[in-house]
């Protein structure tokens, strides 16, 4: 298990093309925004396209091997003495680069249409390109500090893009929340770096992974602190609450950052640090547990949402839970496989929902949709494929990867995670199909009174006013972009939602070969339950979940009385799910409020009255002494003279007496 992720050192100019062209795009969009106008979208997309082509060209060097080394390693510069930066492209980072630039390119293209009428389109593409650059920094870095730099910069890009409509208070608050929670994660990685530098004496992956036990007795804690970073970025429990709020950003942003790429950085981190996790059983258990719980918790929350983007956000959280569970328990290639397929179908779902949202002038509540099949057929077909993929319908991409993850948990001896994985698969089938049926089937409910479908009027009113007051960029909405700009990326992603899984069937698949040298090989005892049974059970869960959803939302009768049913359901949803397990309230109560109270106590009372009070006591003492001494200063010249004479007389008497007594 030595040096297996260290690339072959050398000079690889192509890496710079992959890495820096998006940055160039960002700078150009930013600098020449007013001149570029809508052309900024073309420029931004082209930058990502070039980067993607370069990544394809770099396939060869990423998979090359030399001795124990795989991939390409390009030294950059000495950041600080002892902190050498470099780029590393190996199969693992190549997969991420493909998704970042490939799916990223499609989303850029889509954004050209989506942001057609926004005044700040150049700023949007500058941020988006900057995000791609930051994400590439993250996955191409060959050391922990470089990774952390990318980690922070994607957080920044995410902050900018969530708060893209910065005149909207809810977007501003969501951006701040996302950033602060992500800083918790950054800080976790920072602490892990302290341990790594102290114990391993290097920040390069290759040196650290060569001997994971150099980190003993801190190995477990290194993993824990690294995972704090991963959990914050990947919206794992207990740091997940920022992700649903992040849906305040434009929909392409949700697709790119908060579904396909950035939120999977945690998966990348754990997969990248596979040698560390392989060396620490406790860390595996911990991360697997968090992943499994998040998968379940996210799916349950998905049951109680009506906002189309929020449902997708919770499903993202849940699916990333699967990935984290996979890479956590040691089924690294399975976790990465699920990342790969998820990127397609989740991006497809978001972009499809973006088409619907656009069509309905920023309406996001699925209770006010219905019958969208006729109005947005592209979205219907593509999202149909993606929904089948996410629920793991046999033959679709998610089926293959999710199976691997669930079975991987079993293989590594975590039976309860296996069970949770299966249960979650059933829940996923239910809520995703519910989303699909409610949105696309039946008749359009948008003209109905919101109260009739169970929307609390107060909330609806405020949501509507915000939508109308703040979406001024969309005001002159009816100069739409050519429809194909948005349709083509969605269709392509829909196709891959179906097809992406076929490269990963069986142990000798191209996928398995591709990662052959990337992850530690372990010999495992044969699982007690075979993979076939697992698959069968997963499909059974899917059928059960799907059948319930069908029965409740898609039968002819259900469609007929849909409004009444939706209204009834809205009123009877369990409060614990609607209030998101009270987790936000708990954080507010335990962290935010106490910090603010403490700040107020220190700032309003302790500092001015206690710390400064001591200072003022000193001042007052001096002032008191001053008033005592002042009484001698009468201002009368002759009084002073008399005092002088008296003093002189004292001296005279003293010396006279001294002389007399001697």
């Amino acid at each position, binding site marked *: 298990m030595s040096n297996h992720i260290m690339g072959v050192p050398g000079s690889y100019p192509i890496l710079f093309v992959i890495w820096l062209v998006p940055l160039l795009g960002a700078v150009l969009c930013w600098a020449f925004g007013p001149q570029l106008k809508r052309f900024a979208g073309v420029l931004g997309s082209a930058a990502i396209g070039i980067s993607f082509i370069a990544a394809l060209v770099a396939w060869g060097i990423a998979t090359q091997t030399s001795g124990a080394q795989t991939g390409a390693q390009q030294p950059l510069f000495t950041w600080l*003495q002892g902190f050498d930066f470099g780029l590393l492209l190996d199969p693992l980072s190549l997969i991420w680069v493909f998704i970042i630039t490939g799916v990223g390119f499609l989303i850029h293209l889509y954004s050209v249409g989506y942001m057609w009428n926004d005044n700040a389109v150049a700023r949007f593409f500058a941020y988006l390109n900057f995000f791609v650059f930051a994400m590439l920094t993250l996955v191409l870095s060959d050391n922990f500090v470089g990774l952390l730099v990318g980690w922070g910069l994607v957080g920044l890009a995410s902050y900018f893009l969530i708060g893209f409509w910065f005149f909207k208070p809810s977007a501003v608050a969501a951006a701040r929340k996302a*950033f602060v929670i992500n800083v918790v994660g950054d800080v976790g990685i920072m602490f892990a770096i302290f341990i790594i530098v102290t114990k391993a004496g290097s920040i390069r992956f290759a040196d650290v992974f060569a001997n994971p036990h150099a980190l003993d007795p801190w190995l477990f804690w290194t993993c824990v602190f690294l995972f704090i970073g991963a959990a914050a970025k990947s919206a794992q429990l207990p740091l997940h609450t920022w992700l649903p709020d992040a849906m305040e950003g434009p929909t392409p942003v949700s697709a790119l950052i908060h579904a396909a790429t950035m939120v999977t950085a945690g998966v990348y981190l754990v997969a990248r640090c596979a040698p560390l996790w392989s060396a620490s059983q406790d860390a595996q258990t911990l991360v697997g547990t968090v992943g499994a719980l998040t998968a379940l918790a996210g799916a349950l929350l998905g049951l109680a949402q009506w906002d189309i983007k929020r449902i997708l956000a919770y499903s993202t959280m849940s699916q990333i839970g699967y990935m984290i569970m996979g890479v956590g328990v040691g089924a690294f290639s399975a976790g990465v496989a699920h990342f790969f397929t998820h990127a397609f179908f989740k991006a497809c779902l978001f972009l499809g929902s973006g088409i619907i949202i656009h069509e309905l002038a920023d309406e996001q509540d699925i209770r006010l949709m219905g019958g969208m099949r006729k109005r947005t057929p592209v979205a219907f077909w593509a999202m149909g494929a993606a929904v089948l993929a996410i629920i793991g319908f046999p033959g679709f991409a998610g089926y293959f990867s999710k199976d691997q993850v669930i079975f991987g948990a079993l293989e590594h001896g975590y039976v309860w995670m296996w069970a949770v994985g299966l249960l979650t698969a059933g829940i996923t089938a239910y809520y995703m199909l519910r989303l699909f049926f409610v949105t696309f089937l039946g008749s359009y409910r948008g003209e109905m009174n919101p109260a009739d479908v169970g929307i609390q009027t107060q909330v609806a009113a405020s949501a509507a006013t915000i939508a109308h007051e703040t979406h001024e960029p969309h005001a002159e909405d009816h100069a739409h972009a050519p429809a194909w700009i948005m349709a083509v990326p969605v269709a392509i992603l829909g196709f891959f939602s179906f097809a992406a899984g076929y490269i990963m069937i069986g142990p000798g698949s191209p996928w398995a070969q591709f990662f052959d040298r990337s992850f530690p090989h372990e010999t495992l005892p044969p699982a007690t339950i075979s993979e076939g049974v697992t698959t069968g059970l997963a499909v059974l869960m899917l059928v059960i979940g799907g059948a319930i959803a069908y029965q409740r939302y898609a039968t002819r009768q259900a469609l007929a009385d849909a409004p009444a049913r939706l209204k009834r359901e809205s009123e009877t949803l369990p409060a614990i799910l609607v209030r998101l397990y009270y987790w936000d309230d708990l954080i507010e109560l335990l962290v935010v409020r106490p910090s603010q109270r403490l700040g*107020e106590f220190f700032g309003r009372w302790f500092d001015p009255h206690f*710390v400064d009070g001591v200072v003022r006591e000193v001042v007052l003492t001096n002032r008191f002494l001053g008033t005592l001494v002042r009484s001698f200063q009468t201002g009368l010249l002759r009084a002073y003279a008399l005092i002088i004479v008296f003093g002189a007389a004292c001296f005279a008497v003293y010396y006279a007496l001294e002389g007399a007594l001697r």
Partner: protein
Amino acid sequence: MALILILLPIVAGCALFLLPRTDRTISRVTGCAVAAITFLLPLIAGGGGTFAARWLSRPFTASLHWSWGGPAFWIVLLLALCTFCAVLATNMAQTRTMVALLLLLEGTMMGVFMARDILAFALFWDLMLIPPFFALVGWGEHRDTAWRYLIYNFSGGLLLLLSTAAFGVLYGSTDVIGTSHQLVGEWAPWIFAGFAVAFAVKTPLFPVHTWMPATYSDTPPVMVSVVSSVQSKAGLFGFLVIGLPFFANAMGEWKWLFIVLSLISLLYGAFIALMQTDAKRIVAYSSLSHLGLIVLAIFSQNPIAIQGAFIYIVAHALFSAALFLVLGYIEEREDTRSLVRLGGLGKVNPKLAGAFTIAALAALGLPGLAGFVGEIVILTGVFKNGFFWPALIALVPIVLASAYMLRLLQDIINGPERADIPERRDLTWIEGLAVAPLLAALVILGVYPHAVLSAAATVAAPTGSVQVSSTFRRHEALGAPTLALGGAEFRTERLLK
């Protein structure tokens, strides 16, 4: 050569008073030119500018000795840069007077940072209080603040002078900065305590910080940008060039006191900054928090942490100067700096918002900007020397920093536009030019910090120890290097060993 850096700003500053009171252009051009010269001169002439003249021979030898070599080099450049930016940004009713005060401030601070003699250091330590004092008298909202600033810091200066005298008498000479001998013996901790209190007041460190928030919020922004960015570093610089080379043992004895105080400063400042509504006070309390980190680094006595301290000194100077200048622009336009009243500036002032954003991001330690480099290097060093809990606790303020800095940033530039705020014009090119160098330096230092770090390597390491307890005669170095604390080696090659 070194004398030029001190005298030129002082003479130019005095000469500006000959101009008419209402002058703007001539004084700003002169000020910029002087600052530019003081910036370029060391840069072009390289490391060796020195001036030395014998000052006292009894009771100890003291010299008027200044040099911009060694650790002072980067601070001198920083000071000249910050002064340049501040002068460029000065645009107020009494521009002439303010520029003159800024130049006087630069000259006197040059005298502090370039001093190679502790007595000269102490002399200019007090002189540099005068220009901000007059700025506070002339522009401050409360007259008390000026006196508070002066008396607080002057008390520190008095202790500094006492310690300097004790040092001179016991050691035989004060012309010592840049060399190093370990002072040991019963007096050493107390001499150091005198120095330390003076430095702590100046930095400032909890609990002697209460002059700072009032001073920072009352002083005109251009002046406070120099005071907070460079003047507050004088104390830290003193720890680095006087504390570490001569009092490593004494610092070891006071170590826990100062580590605890620095951690309190870190948390205390951050929590207070979370709830302030005065924008300048937020930055002031954030300074308390950030500078606590540097004190922590210095007292951990780890070579890596000390290098980090150097970077963070520069980084903090850059971003606090930029922040105060930007807040000054905002206050000048909107006539308020209350977060409650401000909002939505980003829409019509994109350049202002951009500059503000970069500065705030650097302050909250965004990777890729200078603040992050300092933080990670400092804490790596602190952790490496076995200070597990301090390193862990010091991470909390980083999270808090992101919360209060974003609050500051977003409450001012984001959100809906406020109708009650009258004038909104974007940065003029001169205003932009005044912050651009600071922001550029933040990016450069964040991406490639190696250059500045090499300056840290020149902080002298103790080469021997001198017994000062019971004798008034100067001793030569005795015995082997004192490395008991493991913090005495400051060579960069040792970073990761």
